[in-house]
């Protein structure tokens, strides 16, 4: 188990991480999700031991690792740009971390071949390299140099170099960001399968919410150097803790509509359900706002984007012209732009946020517990 307690890191006056606390449970796949520049890589480097926190503690199984190097912490890491050693072959790249661990100075030198013990260790090492290469299907590439590989192949080699060991935690820094869309989807599934097969603890950094939702058991959403919410993909989607998290999660950006200053729901949305009498921001996901002949929301259609499985509608509220996004089934007969459209939603899909702080207010329809 890895515990991060109140970690901060600043460079000069800029505060990159600000009181981050997070627990990684053993064997779990945790995603660290956040927009570019929010401090994800910085946090990963702290966990790896490549950088020291300004304040705060990192505990591996209860022991403070402040003074331990990356290899003493026994972390494995896949870097954003793979960072393969260009002058070594794929096989040597994968073998290096094992060689550093299992062979002494003599064993790594050419003279080592003279000692039977070293020869035995080298043989098991070669076997381990081959096993992980088979797992990732890169056996035919073992003799090549990294420059002779495609991006996807380099990524597999980088994974192999991390997987060949038996580390305390896997740290992956946007490993799929350099791949094309199709390969990315395929690698997602393979990484999840890999996690299941190895049973190791994964901390997976990404800025892509779809990737985090598809892969992770738990997601920690990071915004501006703080952890905004930790929870299962479903919990983040259904009960976002703040406006910002709600805005970040979901394939279609959520509608955030301010209510009237004296409190209650915006009149253009309301269909008579009760609401707290204080200033609110109401969140309603486009996938929950759909055309309905007798719906309470009256809008005027701006444009329709057909996406195959769904049509995304851009509208304005009839009452005050607030822009809204909605969705319709692919077979919905879209009227011309400028037509009036009535839309409906289910009351339990409304997310209510405090207008001043952006924090979630329990919807009267849901029990107040948050996961």
């Amino acid at each position, binding site marked *: 188990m890895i515990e991060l307690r109140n970690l901060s890191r600043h460079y000069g006056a800029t505060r990159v991480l600000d009181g981050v606390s997070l627990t990684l449970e053993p064997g779990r796949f945790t995603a660290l999700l956040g927009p570019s520049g929010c401090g994800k890589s910085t946090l990963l480097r702290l966990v790896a031991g*490549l950088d020291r926190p300004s304040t705060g503690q990192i505990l591996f199984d209860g022991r403070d690792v402040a003074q331990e190097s990356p290899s003493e912490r026994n972390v494995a890491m896949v870097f954003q740009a793979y*960072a393969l050693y260009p002058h070594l072959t794929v096989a040597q790249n994968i073998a290096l*971390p094992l060689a*550093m661990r299992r062979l002494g100075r003599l064993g790594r030198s050419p003279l080592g071949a003279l000692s039977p013990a070293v020869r035995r260790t080298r043989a098991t090492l070669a076997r381990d390299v081959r096993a992980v290469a088979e797992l990732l299907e890169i056996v035919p590439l073992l003799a090549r140099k990294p420059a002779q590989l495609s991006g996807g192949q380099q990524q597999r080699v980088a994974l192999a170099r991390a997987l060949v060991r038996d580390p305390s935690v896997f740290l992956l820094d946007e490993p799929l960001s350099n791949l094309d869309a199709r390969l990315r989807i395929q690698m997602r599934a393979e990484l999840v399968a890999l996690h299941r097969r190895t049973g190791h603890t994964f901390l997976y950094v990404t800025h892509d919410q779809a990737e985090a939702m598809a892969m992770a058991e738990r997601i920690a959403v990071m915004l501006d150097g703080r952890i905004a919410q930790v929870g299962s993909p479903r919990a983040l989607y259904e009960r976002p803790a703040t406006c910002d998290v709600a805005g970040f999660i979901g394939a279609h950006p959520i509608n955030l509509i301010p209510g009237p200053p004296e409190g209650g729901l915006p009149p253009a949305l309301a269909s008579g359900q009760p609401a707290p009498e204080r200033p609110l921001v109401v969140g309603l996901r486009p996938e929950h706002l759909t055309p309905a002949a007798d719906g309470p929301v009256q809008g005027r259609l701006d444009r329709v984007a057909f996406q195959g499985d769904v049509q995304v509608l851009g509208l304005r509220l009839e009452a005050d012209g607030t822009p809204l996004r909605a969705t319709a089934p692919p077979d919905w007969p879209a009227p011309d732009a400028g037509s009036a459209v009535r839309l409906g939603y289910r009351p339990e899909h409304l997310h209510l946020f405090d207008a001043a702080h952006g924090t979630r207010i329990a919807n009267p329809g849901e029990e107040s517990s948050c996961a």
Partner: protein
Amino acid sequence: MRAPRLLSFALLLIGAAVVLLPFYWMVSLSFKAPDEIFTPTLDLWPNALRWQNYAAALSRTNLLLYLWNGTVVCAGILVFQLLFAVPCAYALAQRRFRGRTLVFGLILAGLLVPFHVTAIPLFLGLARFGLIDTYAALIVPFIASVFGMFLFRQAFAVMPAALFDAARVDGLSEFQIVWRIAFPLALPAATAFGIFSVVAHWNDLFWPLIATTSPDLATPPRGILYFRDRESGDDVGPLMAAAVLVVAPMVVGFLMAQRAFIRGIAAGGLKG
């Protein structure tokens, strides 16, 4: 389009001829008999390939010893220069520490100081340690090369930091990173540096003249000097043969390392 090309080609040829002519003349003379050398006409080509001059050069003086001395001194200097310059350059390029910019500034300033300025303090220092007229006197003053530190720093500075982070995660110590990752990747720069260093010290006459007096420690340029002064002042043929023998290792070495050398110069941002 064609005319300017032809012109520049012709200019290059003329330039090459001007540079190469003295070398050619040296080689040509080294094969000529004495009566062939001093003729009123200019014969670019020897009548026949005669090896007597080479035999004379090798037998009359201790030329082989001088070549050996040159090899020991140049190898010693290069090994120690790399040993110090490479880790230093790595620290300057890839480690954060207080005073880093100051140290780098000092190194840049050091590039501007001609060696001759430091010769007398160095001589006095070596004399105090009783090292004058030893191999050490020829090697020690050059083991810290600011040029090497600069060249390697430039090479290391453009390498991605993630590469070294990956090596740390893989369990390499900082020194292992220097020699197993950074140095092999800087091999073109290392070749360029090696050639600069070896050529400079192989051909150096100034410092060996100051630091050594014993003939047994003479490096090739000083050896040639002996050669001419002592016995064969007028015997141009053997002198030229000796000069060819002294220059040959450099030329062969350069031709072998040429490709890496030019890449290294380009990588270091230097114009050759």
